[in-house]
């Protein structure tokens, strides 16, 4: 297992280098002078020359690339043009907000999706199977923004059960330590506030988790149908294993590889920032951070945001690969 882990981690190095090159090229791929783009058309020639010098734009491209590499390796992601603050400092809370929402959405998606898929496979062609797969089909086809708006209309406006906007009641802000409000409120022993934080998570969480849930349900059903027809399932039953364990232990562990792949991909996509969901629910996440940077042509933020998201994506893939080996021991022997 250790050798497999090291091999997988070593494979990250070329991937990360490749990513850094692409991200580095973004600013240079834009037609025109980056300094003019950053400062705007009305900038004075002096200001442009000054920015050229400070950004190192007069150096050859490989010198620029290596100094860029040196900066990001040291944790310097550049400075936002809009706010004039270090990006590495201001990106944290946005990431935390998106992370918290993603975890919540994916837990919802995995719990419902995997169980619905299992039940559908176990009772194939039953009314449960048909209903669940119809809901899954609607779930993957439904636009997320529409679902979000409908949720707000029904549960926030009409029934008044849940808040529709933000991470927490704005009149009682969370004293942020980690940026993860669930964790922060627990640490502060503010359990009333924890409840409020959870209430704020429900609607955006469901809106964002519905598509992953539907995909997971369909993949689980397919994998479990195949696994349940296997001969080792008959063996397990012939040993006197309880049907619940036959399904959730013997079959599920075998069927889990494709499910895990989907979970990894969907988590990566949600962490990349769901701009629509975050906008509808006023969620101060990475999606909205990048969206506002794009609107303001804040190139350093765009560049670093993409880099951070790409690194997160790669890390999730690493975790998924390591989990593959846990679920199917044949993988690490290849």
């Amino acid at each position: 297992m250790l050798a497999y882990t090291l091999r997988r981690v070593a494979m990250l190095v070329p991937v990360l280098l490749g990513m850094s090159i692409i991200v580095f090229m973004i600013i240079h791929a834009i037609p025109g002078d980056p300094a003019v783009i950053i400062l705007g058309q009305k900038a004075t020639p002096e200001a442009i020359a000054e920015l050229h010098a400070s950004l190192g734009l007069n150096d050859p491209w490989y010198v620029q690339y290596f100094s860029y590499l040196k900066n990001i390796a040291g944790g310097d992601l550049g400075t936002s043009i809009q706010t004039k603050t270090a990006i590495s400092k201001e990106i944290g809370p946005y990431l935390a907000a998106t992370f918290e929402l993603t975890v919540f959405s994916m837990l919802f998606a995995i719990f419902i999706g995997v169980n619905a898929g299992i039940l559908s496979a176990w009772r194939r062609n039953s009314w449960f199977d048909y209903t669940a797969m119809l809901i899954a089909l609607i779930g993957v086809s439904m636009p997320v923004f529409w679902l979000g708006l409908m949720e707000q209309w029904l549960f926030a406006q009409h029934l008044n059960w849940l808040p529709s906007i933000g991470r927490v009641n704005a009149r009682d802000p969370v004293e942020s330590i980690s940026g993860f409000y669930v964790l922060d409120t627990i640490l502060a022993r503010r359990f009333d506030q924890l409840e409020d934080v959870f209430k704020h998570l429900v609607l955006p969480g469901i809106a964002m988790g519905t598509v992953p849930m539907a995909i997971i349900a369909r993949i689980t059903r397919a994998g479990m149908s195949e696994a349940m027809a296997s001969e080792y399932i008959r063996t397990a039953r012939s040993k006197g294993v309880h049907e619940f364990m036959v399904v959730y232990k013997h079959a599920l562990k075998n069927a889990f590889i494709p499910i895990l792949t989907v979970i990894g991909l969907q988590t990566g996509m949600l962490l990349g920032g769901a701009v629509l969901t975050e906008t509808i629910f006023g969620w101060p996440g990475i999606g909205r951070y990048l969206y506002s940077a794009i609107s303001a042509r804040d190139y350093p933020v765009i560049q670093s945001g993409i880099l951070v998201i790409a690194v997160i994506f790669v890390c999730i893939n690493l975790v998924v690969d390591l989990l593959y080996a846990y679920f199917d021991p044949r993988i690490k022997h290849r």
Partner: protein
Amino acid sequence: MNPPILEVSRLRIDFSANQRPLSVIDDLDLTIREGELVGIVGESGSGKSITSLAVMGLVPSPPGKIESGEIRFKGEDLTKATPKRMRQLRGNEMSMIFQEPMTSLNPVFTIGDQIGESIRIHARVGKKEAKRLAVEALNRVGIPRAEEVIREYPHQLSGGMRQRVMIAIATVCNPSLLIADEPTTALDVTIQAQILDLLRSLNREAGTAIMLITHDLGVVAELCDKVIVMYAGQVVEEGDVRSILMHPKHPYTAALLESVPGRDADRERLISIPGSMPAPGTVTQGCRFASRCSYATGKCRERVPPLFEVGNDHVSRCWLNEAK
């Protein structure tokens, strides 16, 4: 004579296809006594595997259904047993090994986990004790370096080794009945002999009754005390292995014996039984073998033959044996 451990009587199993029930097992009777090694022989589709699954309570349902009859295991009627009771019996009092050792073991659990699971379901033992028993079971089935094998996965073992592991799983709780469904069909000839030896010693030493399902009469001749020949969901001949192999009383058994290669050295072509077995539900009257039988008469096509007593503990379902 030992008391019976398994008594199947008037068993009928239907499979529904397109809402129409088809009987795949019809009026089946068979008895296996304690410590006996019984061979069940027949072509593919004769109902031998489904009979064994019925005993284990593992007939896939739907589409299968035990329509009528009794399966008595140590006197208890299993057709009326609850799922919980069946789980207590399976893997403990009776267990089963299958044809395909390559796919019958779960690829994602270690050998130790898979043997240990059987132990921990049926006996209240801790993890350590289960591990010790698993190693012991592997030693018993002749697996070298058992201490290491329990940490390995099925794909790291050869086919013969996997079948040994299957036998270890099936016998770890010392069952009184072991059903072996073509346990050697998927294995090399040299490995086949080893597995058969292992089954024999299990039968002799532990006194486990074995129901050996096979289509290989050579295996039967070598191993079994008693033979049951099945055809199209019915028992057609049953008796002591010697008298059946030497003096078959049913044309089907005789034809099966004829088709064993190598019995007659100067014969060049392999002999086969002309025609094929009728599909379930297609024979509604008369003997099911009549269409392929060279001795068939008008009576055979009209009336179903009963089982005739043809010798000491030897019965045959053929009109030729009437009033002999």
